[in-house]
């Protein structure tokens, strides 16, 4: 499956900002989590995401750097497994991805989880600004708890994923296309 960006990908990051903030606020702080993003890949391979740090996803997807992040590749996410963010950066763009996703936001401990819900795949990206062997261990050992957190947010975000299918013409994505083509 080839993954492509949903036409409203960039817009969705901000068009539902207050709603997403309310949802993520419920879980940020639990288990020292400082960042959570929920990305959906539908049956057609279209990717769309909501994030507690939308600037990160905007920079990542506006720059095409996301293509070098294996967490958005079907070969990885269809295994429905988990890994640290850095383990999924392609070596050729490792430094840039690490800077954009982690150093810039001071995220030191990270985890990426893939889950299946119906016919769709959800990718949960979690990060903490703290760093310790205990936290690393917790991120690995208590993965079921992190899946539950991701599923909780996904359920509350579902109406907004649906609205993205019906609402008006994308603005940011169109601006990006114009910039790329000019």
């Amino acid at each position, binding site marked *: 499956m080839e993954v492509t960006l949903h036409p409203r990908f960039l817009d969705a990051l901000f068009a539902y900002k207050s709603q997403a903030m309310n949802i993520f606020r419920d879980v940020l702080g639990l288990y020292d989590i400082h960042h959570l993003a929920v990305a959906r890949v539908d049956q057609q391979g279209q990717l769309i995401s909501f994030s507690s740090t939308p600037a*990160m996803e905007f920079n990542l997807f506006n720059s095409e750097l996301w293509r070098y992040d294996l967490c958005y590749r079907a070969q990885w996410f269809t295994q429905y497994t988990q890994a640290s963010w850095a383990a999924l950066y392609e070596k050729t763009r490792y430094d840039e991805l690490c800077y954009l996703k982690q*150093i810039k936001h001071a995220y030191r401990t990270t985890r990426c989880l893939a889950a299946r819900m119906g016919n769709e795949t959800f990718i949960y990206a979690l990060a903490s600004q703290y760093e310790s062997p205990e936290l690393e261990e917790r991120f690995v050992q208590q993965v079921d708890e992190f899946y539950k957190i991701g599923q909780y947010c996904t359920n509350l975000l579902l109406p907004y994923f649906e609205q993205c299918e019906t609402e008006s013409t994308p*603005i940011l994505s169109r601006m990006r296309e114009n910039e790329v083509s000019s």
Partner: protein
Amino acid sequence: MEKVDLTRQFACRLKDAMLAAGLNSGRSTSGVCIHKLVEITGYSTQICRKYLRGEAIPEPVKLVEIARYLKVSPGWLLFGDEHNDSPFSQEILTINKKLLQYIFTRLRSLYNSDADEQEIAEFLMAMINDISQINASEEQSKKIIDLAFSSVHHFTR
């Protein structure tokens, strides 16, 4: 950016930052005190020499440690990025004045909503934080601000 360019530019910035921090050495060909870099990183002289020659880049955790010691931003050290990513400035936001003014012009719509003051303050802080971290043109940033403000009527879930 090509990896070779990146490592060379990193080396130049590392030397600049070390000189600015007073870590210069008249005896070293690089002009900076390699022993101090060994002390900061905990790595061998051989590895540190590679950093200064533009042959390697330290891993991210070590990069942040070097940046912290030299009191520069890791983003600047790695990419020359002047964005607000210093571990020392997490309490400080840097935002384009025109964009901040644009946000102020949109404030009225927030205070006409049903949201309480605390919620509005949190929303504004989050949005200003987003805008300060986004790599976008002024026009794109304004559209982002418009989109975020349009979500406000949903404050109460």
